[in-house]
């Protein structure tokens, strides 16, 4: 059954956002876009999206608005403040519309935005993703959503155009908590793989062979396959830019302190990421955690 065409707004036309917009247009929906610099919207417009003059203007043409932006402060500005005067999303969204934020931001910020929107009868989901640029291209993202179940059910057909594993985790903020867990487990595993590569090299053992021995065993993992392979080939180009993981760790560790949860391994990974950033590798891949050990 072909879904009914919906009016959708989309803000955040980067490596992730652009292919996501394409999938929504291909799904038969009418998509409005906005970007700080109109040039960033060129691809989306070429694919059939309509450029709007401000977040509020985009909101007036949309029943559902997706955002996928870098920082919580940026999301807050686009939704609550706007870029000048009262032109944030909140100033254009009608009652009964939905804002779906797919950025990776602090759970507390997600709850704050949801609270402001709820006062005006606007629904909110936090729905961060995992899978990177490749997952966005192929429409195979993992999407972890927080919010009301009925709102999730309403948005689910749109999520299905962009992702493959789509899970409603819990109430508002639960999506961001899940994303934090995802980042912790993944980057800690990258660090563990880097340490293994470093130990192998220190003993003059070929890490590519170590990997092939480990892959089928209990230490096998997607991180070992992907990042271990990059490390063995000494391919340190992004991938996922390490600065984004570094940013995530500030959120994770802040949340841990707020909750009184000790995260000893994550704390160490955080510090290794600081060293990676200090070495100027922030725009390269997180597999550079290996090169931090080699210093």
């Amino acid at each position, binding site marked *: 059954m072909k879904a009914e065409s919906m009016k959708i707004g989309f803000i955040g036309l980067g490596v992730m956002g652009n292919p996501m917009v394409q999938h929504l247009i291909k799904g038969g929906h009418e998509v409005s876009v906005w970007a700080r610099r109109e040039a960033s919207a060129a691809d989306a417009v070429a694919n059939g999206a309509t450029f709007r003059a401000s977040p509020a203007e985009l909101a007036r043409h949309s029943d559902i608005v997706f955002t996928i932006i870098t920082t919580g402060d940026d999301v807050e500005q686009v939704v609550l403040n706007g870029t000048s005067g009262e032109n944030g999303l909140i100033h254009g969204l009608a009652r009964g519309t939905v804002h779906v934020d797919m950025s990776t931001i602090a759970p507390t910020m997600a709850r704050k935005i949801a609270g402001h929107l709820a006062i005006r009868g606007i629904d909110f989901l936090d729905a961060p993703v995992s899978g990177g640029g490749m997952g966005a291209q192929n429409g195979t993202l993992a999407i972890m959503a927080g919010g009301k179940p009925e709102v999730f059910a309403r948005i689910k057909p749109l999520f299905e155009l962009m992702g493959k594993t789509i899970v409603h985790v819990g109430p508002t903020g639960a999506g961001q908590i899940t994303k934090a867990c995802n980042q912790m487990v993944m980057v800690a595993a990258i660090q563990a793989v880097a340490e293994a590569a470093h130990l192998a090299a220190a003993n003059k053992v070929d890490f590519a062979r170590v990997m092939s021995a480990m892959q089928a065993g209990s230490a096998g993992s997607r991180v070992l396959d992907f990042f271990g392979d990059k490390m063995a080939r000494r391919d340190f180009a992004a991938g996922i830019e390490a600065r984004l993981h570094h940013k995530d760790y*500030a959120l994770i*560790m802040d949340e841990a*302190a707020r909750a009184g949860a000790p*995260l*000893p391994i994550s704390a160490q990974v955080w*510090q290794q990421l600081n*060293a990676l950033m200090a070495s100027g590798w922030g725009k390269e891949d997180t597999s550079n955690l290996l090169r931090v050990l080699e210093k």
Partner: protein
Amino acid sequence: MNIGSNIGFIGLGLMGAPMARNLAKVGHNLHIWARRPQALAQYTGLAGYTVHASAAEVAAASDIVFTMVADSPDVHQVILGEGGVAQGGRSGLIVVDMSTVAPATAREVATALFERGIDFLDAPVSGGESGAINAQLTIMVGGEEAVFARVKPLFDLLGKSVTLIGGVGAGQVAKACNQIITGVGVPAVAEAINFAHKAGVDAQRMREVLLGGFAASRILEMHGKRMLDRNFTPGFKAWMHQKDLRIVLDAAHAQHLQLPTAAAALQLYNGMVGSGMGEIDTTGMLKLFERMSGIDEEAVQ
């Protein structure tokens, strides 16, 4: 130029109250205000103290205002917020913030005050409640030398070791360094005591002998004793050291600075707060290690 004898003091908690008392003791007129009315009740009608209705009123009546509050947002609020010090202070006023906050907060507040002709020093302290009571605090100051020189006689009423470290924010940087060393030191001493105990060795004697060697430190001496006495009354509350280490690690994150040991220590303070020990002294860290070692607390007492 000497500072007049009208002194504003905002933040009359565990540290602030005895500090204000040490200033009042030598005949200064203390102008006070607190966000919690109950903190002020005991001062109404007390000789030497005038209770005001806002921080702005305190500032208007004072030649210098000290603030001693919990965290960066509190400092922003009482100094720059509605009814804050900046609104009542005239040009020439000196504001001295003795709270432990981010160096960036000190610089922001100083900049906003300079625009109004108000001078600012950041002057966080070390030495805990007993240091505040006995006027034995260590005071680490950031700001202009001329302003420091004027405030120095008042600092001398509060502390023993008073040092100008550098420009605005430098006092907070020094305090951050202090919190790294003490924040790591307390769990190190707690680990050693727990280790000795688990190994069946008298921890009292362990501490005594170590105080004669290279592991000797103020923390082994003071905090170690409190742990052995099982006196976990604050002192310095665990949640406050957690807060201070968060300030340090957030700054390190922003500067891409690796602080692995401080990061590990912060997780232990998270553990204390999360298991309901946020309000006891940091020496309660020993209880955290005992729980994780399968030691029954009642058996130790």
